[in-house]
Structures are given as C-alpha cells and as structure tokens.
C-alpha cells in the first residue's frame, strides 16, 4: 500500500495553472502534442488533440460538477497531527507544511454541499496534488463527516477519488481510515441515499480498498489507473510484464468492476441521470430485506 513516491518528488506537479511564461504551452503526456495551456483548461483538462484525460485540480472538478454558485465548503477546518513523530529524511510536519502552503489547503480532500443539475449532493473531491492524495486521519475524518452530514441533510454523495493510498507517515492510524470511511457510508445506506464514486487517475491502495469501491454505482474516467497494488509493485513481485491496459478503467469495465467509463465532458450529465433514476424509486416504505443466507 501507500505508493507515496510523491513525497520524494523534486518538483511536484502543482495542478494549478502555472503562470510563468514558460507554462503557457505544455506537451501532452499522451500524444506529445504542444497544447496551449488555456485550451486544455477550457477543455476540462482533456487534450484537444487525443482526448487524454489529464489529472484535474480540485477547483476545476468542483466547477465541472456543481451548478453555478451552489458549492458550499464543508472541509478545511482539520489539519494533520504527527502522532508517530515520523521522520524519514525530514519530519512529517515539515513536509505537510510545505504541501499545505503549495496547495493552499490543510489536507488532500475537499468536501462540501452542492447542487448537481438541481439534485442535492455532497461532494468529496480528492486532491492528488496534495501528497499524492494520500489518506491519513484528516482525509478519513473529512470523508466520514461528509458522508454523515450528507445523510443528515438528505443528500446523495458523490466521491471523486484520486489517491496513492494510505499515508504511511501516520502509520496504522492511516490504515484504520479504511474501516472508518467504510463504516461512515452506512449512514447513507440506512437512509437509502445514493452514493456514487467516480474513480479518476490514479486511484490506488487503501482508498481503492475502502470507500472508493463501495459506491452503489462506480464509474471511472477514461484510462484512469485503478488498482490495489500499483503496477511497479506487481512487476517487482511477479517479475514479468503486465498485460496491455492492465488496471486501466476500460480493463476494469471488462472485468466487471465498474458500472461504466465516462468521458469527463459527459460526467455531470450522467451523474445527474443516475441520481434521478436512483431517487425515483417507489415512495412506499419497503422494510429491510432479509439477508441472503449463503451464496
């Protein structure tokens, strides 16, 4: 778990638009075309040449999904502690301070209320540019609170995930966030409120193995890497090449793991349709079903 190579990167990708003159143009990772950065941003970070879905900053994602002026921020009041007094080549608090400064938020997730084509939702959007979207106590608590509050306020929950896994600097406490976020979703289930997870590139490790894959519906963005163990770890373990497209969204669709792969331009519309369909069930009170005995 915890593919947190991110912390080691010399020049972490910011995710925000780079305002330096050199940043006006950029090369597409996928097709190598030179693209004008503003065009990419205007196109929801989808390459106009090859349709490659670049990683999307949190603010842009919220703008993509929330109806105009409807987003109300919930998260942001919690900041990491250093329960292990974790030091590798640098103390954990120093690393966190630096990335907080860079990303201008206390940790790797943003949550809030919004309307999505008029539907009341709670949004959970992970920030991969913040320490690789790793899940420690703050991310776990924010996701948990968002799920609980969504249930209280009769909102559907949409989680847009992007994560390198658990945050190892908080040790087993990070691991426990997998159970904590899973349990938090029960509040929604009990009220039969839809929870849809949107898996974006990359969603890995402890986040994939907890709330990300527990959506009533699970959708993915094109070509997103979605896995438990990262490709490098697997390659080191099995010492052989991985199949073409392995662990990518389209591969997982074939393997039966996601409901659909949805291009970013259609994402909002599709989510809205799902919500209308899932919330249009019989009004009548239907008691809990009995549990199937054994499969």
């Amino acid at each position, binding site marked *: 778990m915890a593919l947190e190579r991110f912390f080691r990167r010399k020049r972490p990708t910011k995710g925000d638009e780079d305002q330096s003159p050199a940043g006006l143009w950029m090369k597409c990772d996928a097709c190598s075309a030179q693209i004008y950065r503003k065009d990419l941003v205007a196109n929801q970070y989808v390459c106009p040449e090859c349709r490659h879905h670049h990683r999307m900053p949190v603010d842009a994602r919220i703008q993509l999904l929330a109806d105009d002026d409807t987003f109300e921020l919930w998260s942001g009041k919690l900041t990491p502690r250093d329960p292990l007094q974790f030091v590798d080549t640098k103390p954990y608090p120093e690393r966190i301070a630096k990335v907080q400064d860079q990303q201008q938020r206390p940790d790797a997730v943003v949550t809030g209320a919004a309307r999505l084509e008029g539907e009341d939702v709670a949004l959970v959007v992970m920030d991969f540019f913040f320490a690789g979207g790793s899940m420690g106590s703050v991310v776990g608590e924010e996701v948990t609170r968002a799920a609980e509050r969504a249930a209280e306020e009769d909102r559907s929950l949409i989680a847009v995930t992007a994560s390198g896994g658990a945050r190892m600097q908080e040790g087993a406490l990070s691991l426990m966030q997998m159970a904590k976020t899973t349990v938090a979703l029960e509040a929604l289930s009990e009220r039969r409120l839809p929870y849809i997870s949107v898996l974006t590139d990359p969603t890995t490790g402890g986040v994939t193995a907890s709330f990300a894959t527990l959506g009533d519906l699970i959708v993915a963005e094109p070509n997103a890497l979605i896995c438990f163990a990262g490709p490098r770890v697997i390659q080191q373990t099995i010492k052989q090449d*991985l199949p073409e497209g392995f662990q990518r969204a389209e591969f997982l669709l074939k393997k039966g793991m996601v409901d659909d792969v949805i291009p970013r331009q259609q994402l909002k519309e599709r989510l809205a349709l799902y919500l209308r369909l899932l919330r249009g069930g019989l009004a009548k009170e239907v008691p809990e079903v009995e549990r199937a005995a054994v499969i």
Partner: protein
Amino acid sequence: MPLSFEQPIVELETKISDMRSYAAEQGVDLTDEIQLLEQRLERLKKETFANLSRWQRVQVARAPGRPTGMDYLQSIFEDFTELHGDRALGDDPALVGGLAFLQGQSVMVLAQQKGRDTKENIHRNFGMSHPSGYRKAIRLFDLADKFHLPVITLIDTPGAYPGIAAEEQGQAWVIAESIRRMSRLRVPAISVVIGEGGSGGALAVGVANRVLILENAIYSVISPESCAAILWRDSTEAPKAAEALRLTADDLLQLGIVDRVIDEPVGGAHRNPGSAMERVKGALVEELAALMSLTSDEWIRQRRERFRHLGEFDLV
C-alpha cells in the same frame, strides 16, 4: 535458525545441554553449575526480549516456529471443521475458515495462514490472500450471522497478494467489501493479531469488537521493507522504517488501534508455542464472555464506534 539477537541465548542453551551430557557421561555432579547457568539463561531471555527494538520485534513476529493460524485452530479450539471455497473464484489456502467450539461455544473462526515450512509456504502463498480468500471470509461472515455464531479471526499476513489475477478479480473491491461485511456482523467478533498484521489485507478481517495482539506481533500500514524502499530508496533501511512506523503491540495499544496486548512466554511464542496459544485462548474466552452481555444492535454500534473514532488531527 535462530534470529541474530537470539544468538547468545542459543549459545547458552547449547552450553547447558553440553554440560548435562558431560555430567551424565562422566558421572559427575554439575547440578549447581547447571542451575546457575539456567538462572543466567532465564535472565538473558528476559532482558533480551524486554529490550527488543521494533525491527527485532518484526523478526520475532515472523520467526520460524511461531505458531501459525492452523496451529491455533487445531490446538485451542475443539472440533475445528474447515469450510472451503468462496462459491465464485476458488478456495484460497492463505485464508482458512470453519466451524469450531471454543470451550463449548460454537464459533466461526477464520485464520490467515502462512506456511510452517517451504512447501506449505508455497501452498499458502506465504499467507497472502487472493480475492477468493476475502470472498470466502464474506461467505463465512454471512453464515455466522445466519446461525448466530460469534466470529473469531486470527490475523497473520504480509498483506493481500499483489498479482495480476488478484487485481483482475478486484482485490481492492473484495477487501472493501470484507471490511463492510465484517462491520455489519450481528454477532460479536474478536480479532487477534498473532504475527504480522499487514495493511489492508489484514484489516479486511480485522473489523472486530475487540482487537487483541500478541506481545511480539506487529500491525502496520506498510511493511518496513516497502516503506524503506520508498522513503530511503533502500529496503535494507527497514530497521529505520520499523522504528518510524510504530508498529509494535505497545505502540498500537497507545494509538488505540488494539484493545489489549497478550503477553507471550519469555523468549517469544516461537520458543513456547503451547503456552502462547493457551494465553490466546484464555484471552479469547475472557473477551467473548465479556461481550455476551450485549445485543446485536449493540455489537454493531460498538464496532462502528470503535473504528469511527480512530484518527488524530488538530483544528486549523
């Protein structure tokens, strides 16, 4: 093969044994000398094991001869009867489950199983489950619920297996589902980390009302080796990583991640498996008895609350 820090203990043991043989062969009386050495041995073991570094504990947790899941199933439960298969993908030998009596009470027991020798290790995939293992766990949780059987899980895995088939079959999906299913159990559940609690692959069967751990067992978000490989770009820095990760029983008790530490016999469970297993049995019987006063709703609520409150953070 003893662990490196056990070398002085082993040497002393050899010396005592030699002395005994000599006394017997030569017909001389060395009782006093031997007794002295035995006292020294006892002291040495106590000192050594009282002052283990975190990395040394990792080694003890993985030591050959340490009782494995199956050892417990066969010795502290009565009539253990294995139930095979997940009804979908296969039967994972790395996760063994079945019905048994624990001091007369029917229970459903699941154990992650490493091998006791090379051949078994290969058969058990070194205790690393594929998705079928977690699917089997989910199936057995269903069965436990249906027949009101308390659930006991014994945790001992380096982690869920990272392989091609495992990913294709949704390793992440089944771990998440197993966590959820276990959190929904309408019966009491107790987990014991008996060796290595390796990340999500361990937690998948660790969402219990009470989580116990043996004195020299570990529970961690990542193995020290992998952690070192990432942070120091060198897996031989694992000792450093083990320190940083705070993965010992005492650390975890302080962090609230486990509820109780079960003492091992002096010298570690691998030096006295029978005694170690009896201690685990004692703890299980005690804990189960204490849980019996609750109702189904309370077991669920307690389990949820327990995990709901794990995590440390500050206000901005």
